[in-house]
């Protein structure tokens, strides 16, 4: 991100040291509030359980142990099955990657049609599609239950892939269409005169100028689908669940002993992919959202 200029009007908003200190203190407080949960989870993943029970969940670590992570990954027992969350982690990967790719690609094609090949009623279709952006997921639970049943995709990752592709289309279409609207129509006209058709223009001209918005869409879809758990809880169970759903089982089921170290490790494992995505793609995300298309 580019360095933003310091706001200053009327001789400067931020006057002197005291003012500057207040700003830093205020922002640091919020940064602390946002980062606290991450710290707690990371710390507890590597603390010894007795120490956690003795000093409380939120405390500065006094012990160190590497046992929790492997346990959460491979051996932790939920309702009698003792194989940790690794299957659920793979389920999530197997669900999120195809769903992200498919919904992003379809969104790009939709956006291309709705901005560059408009037809009678295309604006209405676009308006209806964007309605989906504001539609809470639970509204479609029952229809999905029916459809998955009819397709024999209940309790399978494939069912979740279908759901997330469709549920995500509103967002991906909105993102891509609004990006392509700023691509000059003359480019398309020139290509038509050059003898290129619908798909050749899409693959040779439109897609190559799309990376900024595709990165935004992929990050949005990946983190959204990975973190989603409502559909996972409702439509899958046990070994078939994505990791978000299985973490709930870990927290609620089992014995009376709260294994905070293993639970923290499970949460950490479940949070790693979105964290990595933000870590590597975050700056492109902001850039892609704020930058227009190529002139």
């Amino acid at each position, binding site marked *: 991100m580019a360095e933003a200029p310091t706001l200053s009007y009327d001789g400067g908003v931020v006057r002197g040291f005291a003012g500057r200190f207040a700003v830093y203190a205020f922002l640091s407080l919020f940064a602390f509030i946002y980062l606290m949960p991450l710290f707690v989870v990371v710390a507890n993943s590597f603390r010894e359980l007795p120490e956690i029970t003795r000093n409380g969940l939120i405390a500065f670590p006094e012990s160190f142990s590497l046992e929790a992570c492997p346990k959460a990954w491979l051996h932790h027992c939920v309702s009698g099955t003792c194989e940790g969350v690794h299957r659920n982690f793979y389920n999530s990967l197997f669900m999120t990657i195809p769903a992200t790719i498919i919904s992003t690609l379809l969104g790009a094609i939709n956006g291309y049609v709705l901005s560059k090949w408009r037809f009678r009623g295309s604006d209405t279709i676009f308006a209806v599609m964007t309605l989906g952006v504001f539609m809470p997921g639970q509204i479609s639970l029952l229809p999905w239950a029916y459809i998955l049943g009819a397709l024999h995709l209940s309790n399978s990752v494939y069912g979740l892939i279908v759901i997330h592709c469709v549920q995500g289309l509103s967002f991906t279409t909105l993102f891509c269409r609004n990006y392509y609207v700023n691509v*000059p129509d*003359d480019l398309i006209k*020139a290509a*038509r*005169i050059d*003898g*290129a058709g619908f798909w050749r223009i899409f693959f*040779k*001209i439109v897609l190559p*100028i799309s990376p900024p918005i595709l990165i935004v869409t992929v990050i949005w879809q990946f983190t959204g689908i990975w973190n989603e758990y409502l559909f996972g809880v409702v439509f899958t169970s046990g070994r078939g669940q994505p990791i978000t759903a299985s973490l709930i089982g870990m927290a609620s089921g089992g014995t009376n002993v709260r294994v905070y170290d293993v639970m923290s490790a499970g949460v950490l494992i479940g949070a790693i992919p979105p964290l990595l995505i933000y870590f590597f793609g975050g700056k492109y995300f902001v850039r892609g959202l704020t930058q227009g298309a190529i002139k």
Partner: protein
Amino acid sequence: MATLTIRSLRKRFGSVEVLKGIDLEARTGEFIALVGPSGCGKSTLLAMIAGLESVTEGEIRIDDRLVNAVAPKDRDIAMVFQSYALYPTMTARQNITFGMESRGVPKAEQDEAVKRVAALLQIEPLLHRKPGQLSGGQRQRVAMGRALVRDPKLFLFDEPLSNLDAKLRVDMRTEIKKLHQRVGKTTVYVTHDQIEAMTLATRIAVMHKGSIQQFDEPHVVYSRPSNMFVAGFMGSPSMNFIPAELVDADGRPAARIALHGGGAATLPLGFVPERRTADGRVVLGVRPEHLFRYDDDLKARKPGLARLEAPVDVVEPTGAETMAVLKLGEREIVGRFDPDGAPRTGEKLPLGIDMANACLFDPATEILIPRVAA
């Protein structure tokens, strides 16, 4: 080599009629300029010739082949856009070859064609660069290269110079003219700049509100504009319109105009108008360059010179010439003078009007009243 024929062409967007019956034809190798103010329909007309807009009514023929329903790629045309419309992720070479690739032209033939066009436009050193690394003028060259490489029947230009700065625009204008002289392709060129139209075209179509006002050679459009719109649009500063009355002076037709501060002058026309208006009122059209500081030597050389006096209000030297705003009757007129002996502010100028080059318009219809051939 190709001709373009357009007959009774109409275009409606919903209930709005943007083209109201266009008739136009370009002979082989001709350079036609479509000129007019924004919103006159010239770009729509070009887009219809290209096949990018559908035809509501009428017909477009390229080389006598009706192309109304033919796709842009099958019309054998090439187009240069105002925004250049270069594909941003491709190099200049890829931009130029994209069309040939779409058509499946063999690689060797493509290389040959790129070489030929790059040499013609002197863009060889730029071929490996992307549009973002090119200046405005260079992009324009590459865009022309992309059009030229096709060797099409028809060249279409949509305000190709409007995005360039003033100096480059003049240079590129000359380049385009040279190019046309060398390649000799039939060309349709849309511009809102009347100077571009005058300098480039073999014939100019002046458009206004969806119809063609006049379609003729540049010097005819300039010196015998068919109506007051064309007269006012072509030429800068614009033609002066002076209300006048047609009278007879010594048995010859003359225009009587009001002078500043009362009084009137009778200016012998030096030609015979084909008809008279019912009440004798006309509009006298005089181009700024047909106003002079009157003297007897000049009169000897220009027998059509009529004399009157006009106070000078504002003087604007531009270097090569000096513009002066003069008061005449109730209104102001603009003259273009040689800097030697140019009017001075506040001076009561002995003004010579070259009536041999003046035009008469009917004030009711704004249409030119033609002359009886001498």
